[in-house]
């Protein structure tokens, strides 16, 4: 502790620091630290928000091609969004909702088995189901692509460039997130209230509907949100499994437009998607609180 001068060690330091006479080089370091801190916060905000500003500015550009800064401004880009992108948006939305329903139907029983049942090797099973979380998206994409190819060759069932193939892959990808959220909730809430319900004469379904499900609701909403977002923003898997214009999801469609034909209308679409995502986040914040979503899984 060689850096603390004697006066700081012996007097009541905060009082000493209030008077200018006692200003030491350590306090000056504090000032520099404070300055750096402020600078870092401002720089971080600029770094994070500048790209969105650029996207917005280009989305209201009147130029036919992407120019920055644009020569003049108009809102007509928002009417020129390619129909492929609009169609892909609805397809993504449908996919996301379907994924959420399948996940819910699979996860609730699975979570009960893990949290309440007496499964042999339960932690192993849990670790196995958590596995896909850590696998990079591109590896998942290759794995499904090659599996579907093998399936096609051996049985003639085609899942490539099919909605069904995408559904299966996304369920596998999102399942662990939903499961983790629900299992944690089941562990923390404990079986006491359900036992009380049974004790008061309620049957299984009544208990489930009036006691268990209401208690689990925040976790179910949080898990659904995670599953939907992961499915909605996935590029690598959807790019491998459904690249065609008639099957591709929104991010894949936008990815391909960005690679092949960048236009201000694409930026307009991006802004609309951004607004949609923000509305989703606000809705979740109002429903269960974003913090819970981000900490439970």
């Amino acid at each position: 502790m060689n850096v603390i001068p004697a006066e700081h060690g012996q007097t009541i330091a905060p009082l000493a620091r209030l008077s200018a006479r006692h200003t030491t080089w350590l306090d000056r370091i504090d000032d520099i630290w404070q300055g750096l801190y402020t600078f870092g916060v401002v720089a971080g905000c600029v770094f994070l928000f500048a790209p969105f500003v650029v996207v917005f500015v280009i989305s209201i550009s009147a130029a036919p091609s992407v120019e920055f800064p644009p020569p003049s401004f108009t809102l007509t880009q928002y009417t020129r969004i390619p129909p492929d992108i609009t169609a892909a948006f609805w397809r993504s939305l449908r996919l996301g909702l379907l994924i959420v329903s399948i996940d819910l139907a699979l996860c609730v029983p699975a979570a009960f088995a893990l949290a309440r049942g007496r499964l042999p090797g339960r932690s192993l099973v849990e670790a196995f189901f958590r596995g896909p979380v850590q696998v990079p998206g591109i590896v998942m994409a290759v794995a499904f692509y090659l599996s579907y190819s093998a399936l096609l060759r051996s049985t003639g069932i085609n899942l490539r460039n099919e909605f069904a193939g995408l559904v299966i892959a996304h369920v596998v990808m999102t399942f662990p997130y939903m499961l983790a959220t629900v299992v944690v909730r089941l562990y923390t809430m404990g079986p006491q209230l359900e036992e009380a319900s049974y004790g008061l004469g309620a049957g299984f379904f009544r208990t489930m509907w009036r006691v268990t499900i209401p208690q689990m609701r925040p976790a179910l909403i949080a898990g659904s949100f995670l599953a939907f977002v992961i499915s909605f923003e996935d590029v690598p898997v959807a790019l491998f499994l459904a690249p065609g214009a008639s099957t591709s999801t929104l991010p894949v469609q936008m990815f391909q437009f960005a690679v092949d034909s960048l236009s201000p209308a694409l930026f307009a679409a991006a802004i609309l998607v951004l607004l949609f995502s923000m509305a989703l986040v606000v809705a979740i914040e109002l429903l269960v609180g974003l913090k819970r979503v981000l900490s439970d899984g």
Partner: protein
Amino acid sequence: MRLNIISEPLPLLDNYTGVGIGVVHALLPIYVISLVPICQAVNRNLLDASAGLGATRWQTFWHVIFPLTWTGVLASMLLMFANAIGAFTTPALLGGGRVLLLPILIRERVLLVLNWPVGATLAALLTLLTFLIVALIAAATSGKWRKERGIAFPKGARAT
């Protein structure tokens, strides 16, 4: 995420630096969010005690906050590393196919060159690397440290 990626090609297209900035941009919010619970786990009374004993903010950081949080921060950093080596969308768009990172190379082998065995091998390699890092994270946040400091395994994220 998708949105800002599209904006980035303008100044730093098709090179390693541009891809690097893009990936940092995509991961930074996730990193910060994963650090919040770690910092919240630090007992506020310790900070007050430190200030009361005359420590400057730098001394408080170095002697109190840093020793209490470094394992969690390290785990978060490793997690971001795992996310970064598996990142696909950002490098694919910003690199324009010319920055050959592992995920980009895998896509090229499987979809464009149709060399499935090489693609599969590379994918297995990437998985192995990621799992290695995850094992390191588990080691860093397990047992004694986790109990003492209340640091949990950081949340996985796949946003790139």
